[in-house]
């Protein structure tokens, strides 16, 4: 099957905020503007840089480096801790603005969104005009230091690629006419979804550039390179046909925590797991679900990894019910003396609570669930962790508020809790 390039008018816009967290900090504090700034998970040497500013990037500072490495590259770098409420507020303002232009807005992460214009008329305006107007309005209405890169094309993949062509503050369009030229300017790993492993796999089949990738026959991609339907999806994606406009339903709720102080102490780990479970349980209940499975994952200081999941016959709802199962799974890990660097818990096997069979008589379980609902209401009214399990006493500053990378599902919580203006 030979499929031509998609020659339809480009109607998909990808908007990406440049150096999101660092730019937000420079917006809030004008004294930081024009200076190298890095937002890091922790401001200490081992803290991971999550967002370098445009100025910091010029020194070679990249996401994922630790603060010590960043300081080697730029002695005067200003390192700041993250301020998630500020970033969420910017995201919500972005979202409100984008919805004035298209009803089909899909947030891809805290700093990226796709606006789909395929189902609406543009009233004699080009999509480039709309993109320029959005850029101007962001500066005027959200923050004068905030810049975004806008990419326009016929599908999400190419519009994201277009947005990455000029950073910061770009506005680029990829059409069937300039597609080959664009592919000539980039490498395989510049394509969203191609990492170094996929690159190696493509290289093994004689595909070394995006242009080679585009010219590869469908059968080669499906039967030899990817050996699955994934090859067909790439064949379509590269030609500008939409294949990624799929929204996945919620399948789990999870929380993770990178320990500031590595430990193998059972009590300390149990306390951390309790806090993660309480946060996870709050989200599970807020969305009106119960769970029947638990997954626990541990990364040790020597970078080895252990994880295990288990499904149970009874559904879990309260933090207590979840925590018992979390500990049951967690205690199955071998080498319990090894120091832990990162913990993650998640629950799966979700069922809507309203479909769970009610019991005829009030049992201890129903009383506990009612007590949990009451505690949740108090926390909703007076703030998180006003009422906490006893195991969590004195640890309200641990397991800090964080924004997940690419956490589209996390954004659902954001919209349900957002402050309307």
């Amino acid at each position, binding site marked *: 099957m030979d499929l031509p390039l998609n020659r339809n008018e480009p109607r998909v816009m990808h908007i990406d905020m440049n150096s999101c967290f660092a730019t937000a900090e420079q917006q809030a504090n004008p*004294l930081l503007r024009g200076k190298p700034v890095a937002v890091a998970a922790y401001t200490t040497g081992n803290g991971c840089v999550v967002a370098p500013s445009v100025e910091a990037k010029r020194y070679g500072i990249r996401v994922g480096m630790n603060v010590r490495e960043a300081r080697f590259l730029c002695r005067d770098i200003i390192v700041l801790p993250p301020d998630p409420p500020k970033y969420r507020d910017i995201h919500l303002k972005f979202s409100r603005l984008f919805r004035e232009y298209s009803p089909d807005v899909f947030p891809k992460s805290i700093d990226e969104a796709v606006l789909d214009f395929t189902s609406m008329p543009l009233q004699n305006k080009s999509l480039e005009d709309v993109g320029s107007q959005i850029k101007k309005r962001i500066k005027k209405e959200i*923050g004068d230091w905030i810049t975004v890169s806008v990419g326009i094309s016929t599908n999400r993949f190419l519009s994201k690629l277009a947005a990455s062509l000029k950073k910061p503050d770009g506005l680029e369009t990829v059409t069937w006419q300039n597609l080959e030229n664009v592919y000539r300017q980039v490498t395989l790993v510049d394509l969203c979804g191609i990492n170094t492993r996929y690159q190696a796999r493509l290289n093994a089949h004689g595909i070394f550039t995006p242009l080679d990738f585009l010219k590869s026959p469908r059968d080669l991609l499906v039967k030899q390179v990817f050996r699955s339907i994934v090859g067909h999806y790439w064949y379509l994606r590269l030609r500008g046909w939409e294949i990624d406009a799929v929204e996945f339903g919620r399948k789990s709720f999870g929380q993770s925590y990178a320990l500031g102080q590595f430990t193998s102490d059972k009590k300390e780990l149990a306390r951390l797991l309790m806090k993660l479970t309480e946060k996870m349980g709050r989200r599970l209940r807020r969305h009106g679900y119960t769970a029947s499975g638990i997954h626990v994952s541990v990364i040790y200081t020597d970078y080895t990894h252990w994880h295990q999941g288990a499904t149970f016959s009874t559904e879990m709802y309260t933090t207590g019910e979840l925590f018992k199962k979390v500990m049951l799974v967690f205690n199955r890990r071998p080498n319990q003396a090894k120091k832990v660097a990162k913990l993650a818990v998640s629950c799966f096997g979700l069922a809507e609570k309203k479909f769970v069979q009610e019991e005829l008589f009030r049992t201890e379980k129903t009383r506990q669930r009612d007590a949990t609902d009451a505690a949740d209401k108090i926390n909703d009214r007076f703030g998180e962790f006003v009422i906490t399990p006893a195991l969590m006493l004195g640890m309200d500053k641990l397991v800090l508020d964080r924004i997940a990378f690419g956490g589209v599902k996390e954004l659902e919580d954001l919209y349900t809790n957002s402050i309307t203006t």
Partner: protein
Amino acid sequence: MNEKINEKVSVVTVFDREKRTVTPRKIKWQGRLYTIEKIGYHHKVKQGKKLLHIFSVCNNSLAFKLEFDTETLFWTLTEVSDGLAS
């Protein structure tokens, strides 16, 4: 350098009826008066049902993070920064 403060402060604000905005203009902190020259960002945060307005403001040498509690109507200075590396 960023420093956490968490002290109640006196703030002079201006309400603009036409623009429908409230803007902090002066801060009195530890006996000194600071004139605000620029509002960097304003956002809202909910702590339970309590609504806080966070103003990030600055003059030409210091940046301040101010928190306005809509329940008590108190202003708290939460952070001060000189915009330099620590």
